[in-house]
């Protein structure tokens, strides 16, 4: 699980162009949206694409997205339980 969390942090920093952050700046329980990393709605769409592209997970219900993108901790748990690749 720790390897997956690190991989997610690296992917998020690279794919969302969070130039000023590195892996150590993101705690597992930091909020991804709002006061945490401050991601926006376009970032949320990019995360949905990332789940599909990298892990074969298709999120179609927006409410499911809200629950999944709470933090790295929650996201990693969801991916480990639902990934198809």
């Amino acid at each position, binding site marked *: 699980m720790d390897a997956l969390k690190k991989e997610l942090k690296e992917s998020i920093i690279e794919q969302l*162009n*969070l130039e*000023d952050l590195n892996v150590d700046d993101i705690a597992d329980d930091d909020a991804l949206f709002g006061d945490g990393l401050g991601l926006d709605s*376009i*970032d949320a*769409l990019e995360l949905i*694409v990332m789940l*599909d*592209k990298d892990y074969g997970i298709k999120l179609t219900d927006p409410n499911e997205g809200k629950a999944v993108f709470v933090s790295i901790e929650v996201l990693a748990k969801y991916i480990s339980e639902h990934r198809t690749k």
Partner: protein
Amino acid sequence: MKTNLNIITFCRIKNHSISINGKEVIQKDSQLTFSEFAKLVYKEKAFAYPKFFKMDNLSKLGFLASEFLFEKADLDAHIKENIGIVLSNKSASLDTDRKYQETINDKANYFPSPAVFVYTLANIMIGEISIKHQIKGENAFFVSDKFNELLLEQYTVSLIQNKKSSHVLCGWIDVDKDKYDAFMYLVAKEGTQNYSKEIIKNIYTTN
């Protein structure tokens, strides 16, 4: 056309160099890509605006030119709020359109990028500049084969004469792969350097 308007300041970015009012203020290694050049300038100037890194290259170029221009012009917030923006280029958003197309070319690997898609319109650059500087004036973006000083003059004069804006941010911001060229200038009634299409064309061709 005699306009009774003036050029407050102008900025040129091309060939890894940035100049303000004809004076070079930044020169970088000519081997850098545009992205590398833009990032270096951003870091050096410590702009502290993380959204910069999410922008496409066209918006980055427009952002940098406007930052240098506004730093030099040092306008009050109430003037900035009402600035009109009239920008133009040749390549529209083609540079980003290609990048977006790469994400949808392969049916077996079809993952359209929302973050790239939002920049597949050239006038998004005007939006980025407006958000950064809280500008709420009228704006327009024109695509033409080359720098069209007459078109920009007519639109600028109209905005000021009709009291839509007291200041107009004008220019040419073009990016296509690693070719880039920005020429941005601020026009208003105040100032001492007379503005006309002939004068601005001369500045464009000699800077």
